[in-house]
């Protein structure tokens, strides 16, 4: 109903005409439109407003950042959102390493299940690959298992069938579902008893340091 009202309104009909067209009353149409407008009331009319500031605010935002990162955010027990950026130096180096233009390289995400492992780049329980369309910088990774730990690599599918890692995410734990599997029981006991200096499970935040690799 709302769609039809809007369609007619866009054609230039007055509310009265719409009411006639739809065999309804002016009050009802107005009521519908109001409800809609209530939701929509912030969406237009900005142009006519006062200049907000003396300084021009461009509202232009970069499409990418000059940093090497692959970040993961949990959406739910089965979905993780990944986005990534690459420094120019890094994509240049990878292109240099493969001796091919960056755009000719096949990009992939490799998702490792590293639950309860000390991951060394090779020893996951299992992994799967996602081939990425060119010019992609983010992905919703679906169909994951709940209550597991994952690491994601962004890299290049080598011609010889190998995989070359360019970026690696921090580990992420998918949340549990109600009544789902559990695995931290003993770790909680050890943590409670003070036997561990820090918890054995992953906590999402680490202190960001601009000199993280320096000692």
């Amino acid at each position, binding site marked *: 109903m709302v769609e039809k009202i809007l369609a007619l309104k866009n054609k230039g009909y007055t509310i009265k005409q719409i009411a006639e067209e739809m065999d309804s009353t002016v*009050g009802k149409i*107005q*009521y519908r439109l109001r409800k809609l*407008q*209530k*939701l929509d*009331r*912030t*969406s237009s*009319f*900005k142009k006519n*407003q006062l200049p*907000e*500031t*003396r*300084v021009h*605010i461009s*509202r*232009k*935002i*970069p499409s990418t*950042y000059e940093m*090497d*990162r692959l*970040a993961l*955010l*949990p*959406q*739910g*027990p089965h979905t993780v*959102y990944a986005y990534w950026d690459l420094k120019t*130096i890094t994509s240049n*180096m990878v292109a*240099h390493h493969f*001796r091919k233009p960056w755009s000719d390289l096949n990009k992939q995400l490799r998702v490792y299940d590293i639950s309860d492992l000390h991951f*060394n780049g*090779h020893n996951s329980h299992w992994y799967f690959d996602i081939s990425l369309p060119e010019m992609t910088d983010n992905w*919703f990774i679906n169909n994951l298992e709940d209550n597991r730990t994952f690491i994601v*690599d962004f890299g290049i599918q080598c011609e010889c069938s190998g995989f*070359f*890692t*360019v970026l690696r995410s921090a580990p992420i734990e998918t*949340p*549990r*579902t*109600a009544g789902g599997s559990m*695995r*931290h*029981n003993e770790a*909680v006991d050890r*943590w*409670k008893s003070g036997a561990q200096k820090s918890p054995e499970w992953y*906590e*999402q*935040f680490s*202190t*960001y340091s*601009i000199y*993280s690799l*320096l000692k």
Partner: protein
Amino acid sequence: MNSYFSLVLHAHLPFVLHREPDRLEERWLFEAVSETYIPLLWGLESCSSEVKYTLSLSPPLLEMLASNTFQERYLAHIRNTQELLLKERDFVKEPEESRVVEFYIERFKKIKETFLEWNCDLISAYRYFMTQDKVEGITSSATHAILPYIQTEQGIRAQIKDGLKCFEHHFGFKPDGFWLPECAFSPGIDKVLYEDGVRYVFVDEDTIRKLDPESQRKNTPVFSPHGIVLFPRCVSTSKKVWDARTGYPGDYEYREFYRDVGYGRDHDYIAPYIHPDGIRVDTGLKYYRITGDTEAKETYIREKAIRKAEQHCEDFLHTVSERIKECGTDSASVTLAAFDAELFGHWWFEGPEWLQMLMKSEKTNIPWITPKEFIKRHYQELQTHHTCFSTWGRNGYGEVWLNESNAWIYRHLHAMEHELVKQMTIHKNPAPLTQRALDQLKREWLLATSSDWSFIMDQQSASDYAVSRLKEHISVFNELVKELNDKRVFESDLQDYEERYPFLHWQKGSSFSSRHDEYILSKPNDRTGEKNLNILMLSWEFPPMVVGGLSRHVFDLSRTLVKQGHQVYVITCAVDGYPDYEINQGVHVFRVSGKQPHHDDFYHWAGSLNIAISELGSQLGEQITFDCIHAHDWIVSVAAKGLKQRLKIPLYSTIHATEYGRNKGIHNDQQAEIHHKEWELMYESRHIIVCSEYMKRDLIEVFQVPRDKMTIIPNGVESDLFKTGNQIVDWKTNFGGRSCFHVFSLGRMVPEKGFLTLIEASALLKNVYPDIKFIIAGKGPMLEEYRNKVRHRGLEDQVFFIGFVSDEERNNYLHESDAVIFPSHYEPFGIVALEGMAAGTPVIVSDTGGLGDIIEHDVNGLKVYPGNPQSIRDQIIRLYKDAGLSFRICKQAQEDVHTKYSWEDISIKTGEVLASDKKKPTMAGVK
């Protein structure tokens, strides 16, 4: 009694108070004040302090309520509404409607009175009721960010700390309860909360169902691992109020939200009371009741609505007491109803009255408790559980704030977070203007992280404002970063940025850095003198990792460069059991490993290592002003080129050997790749160091390197290293006894080292001079084959392939043998020959490559034709017979070692090459 009822309201609006007036979104605040925040005060006024609820006031809301701009505009808004009401009094004809108008006239009079009574300062009103013990005040994160979607601990801490500080600023005390925005929890947040003095938060009931270990009681609070008490919201009870279909607010007697005179009057009539641009908006005057599932609405009858609220109050009390009974008394529990405060009044117009009735009801004996009091009484009974990521949003996790419509924002928000850490780290003790810019930078980030923006985008229909606000904060942030980086902060611009939103203006001197960064920055990092260089040296081999001669060369070169006063930072490959960073004889040694340290393919293994080298090199370059990069061989070429571009400093390389030379040509794809990398490294280098005339000729022939792009600096030998150690074992007894003539050789067991020729030579000597013995050390792929060969030829008593020897053993052999020999076919330099010379033993070499350059026949050693056993035989016999020859060539060899091949000499020459392009001191501050 240990089963209780608790009520929590969370009041929050995003910061929508713009400097310029008449923004539509500002009316969200006005509506909430008239409909919720003031009516809640009326409730508090009339209640006794026996029942007490908990009220969270978010920092953006507090900052808006405290702002003079808001107070003036709100007063004007109320006056305007009152004016409209007077017009309405004349306009409305129906008696029932007139009664509603009179109700509003009365109500707005009271609203204004309350507002003025508290001197336009509603915070002071809430403060008063907190001191009267009628309400427990807590707060939320600084801008109501979804904390699990903040990336760094610093970011989380800022959101939590600034939230608490803001509350303390307005109320004079620091709360120990905290409203997690959207009840969003994830492991680790509790650590920061605890460290900042928070003791309890609220989560969804479902969060309690997902604990590990499992909890049997969903109404019993638990401890998070870091000691925060998590109070679960009781869904079934809360649902009575907020559920859109089955909840109380949908009752037909209650006021209809969607019918407002702002939309129901002629434009000319209503124009002064809606937006100046003619945009119709809610005036807050709504005359109808919900009536039913119909569009024909009937007039609102206040008395009936209030009676309904009374019924709903009774129903609620009944539900709660049933619930409490169900909980039993086995363990302490709390039935906790938690709501957005704006639900009361704004959405459910009669909500505040209902709440008031609930608190005053004498008909029940429901035991109210605040979470704070609950903890005091029962904390010892609470269990600790691992708590996973969860929220009170759709489906219990993050999908409202993270989906296709809004996921794009996190790239920017996280980048801002990182940049903030960086800016606050590099600007230590900033000038006042810089400090202001840093503070504003943080405000922009805070305002951008508000959960409201992603929430609005999730609603799809009205997201323009949210998108615009985000883009505004991001772009201003980036503009300020640019000004800070350019060291040109304009005060007038900055002031303008600050005045856009009166948010946290009282907060100054923010800090956001990490302890680690502070430590790094506090480390002295001065170069030792004007002429000296900061050299970034790249080599995949470095002690203790020794594959060939490269490792020793880089070590000796770097430590002698340090002796010359240069600073040398070597980045090399990680070795198990060795530190990531050490200072070895003055050399800074960094060891890194690639992300795939066991890659099947050596070529990709090297690529992976290069990326790690470049990552560390870039970070080092942030802190240290390097003068140049010095790379050794192709394995580090990708990083060398990358870092050259990144750090904008010249690259020098030393070419120790080539793939072409090693294989006598390029025969397969892998070799071609390596060959190309070598070419590229030379191409990218400002200047190339080679160790011998031979190598130079090779590079000219194979790679067409211009002659004047190369400098020959021979490899060196540290004569001190070859002083005689204590002889522990008399090794000669194993090889024919002391009276025999021992010829020693060593090297990797690969064809180009020429050991096969040596076996042939021994066969020629066997019958004539059986007391000439060959001892050959080293391992490699050909070792077994050589040993077999020796057996086949019956040379077991003449030739001994002894495998790997330690450095000490090797030195003993070099010292005590009667001759050392290097029969290589390919040897770009042959540092081993120098070691033999340094050990004071006569040296015989093949006249090939660098070996031929070092040895001058009959002067400081002897030469043989490569691959020619007779030639080897002849020269060995000469030494065997002529002790005088031995003495003479050893003497000259020693002299050469101490002059031409001393590391001191070499490091001076290398330093000169590396300094040939040193930037002028006038370039200070520019990398």
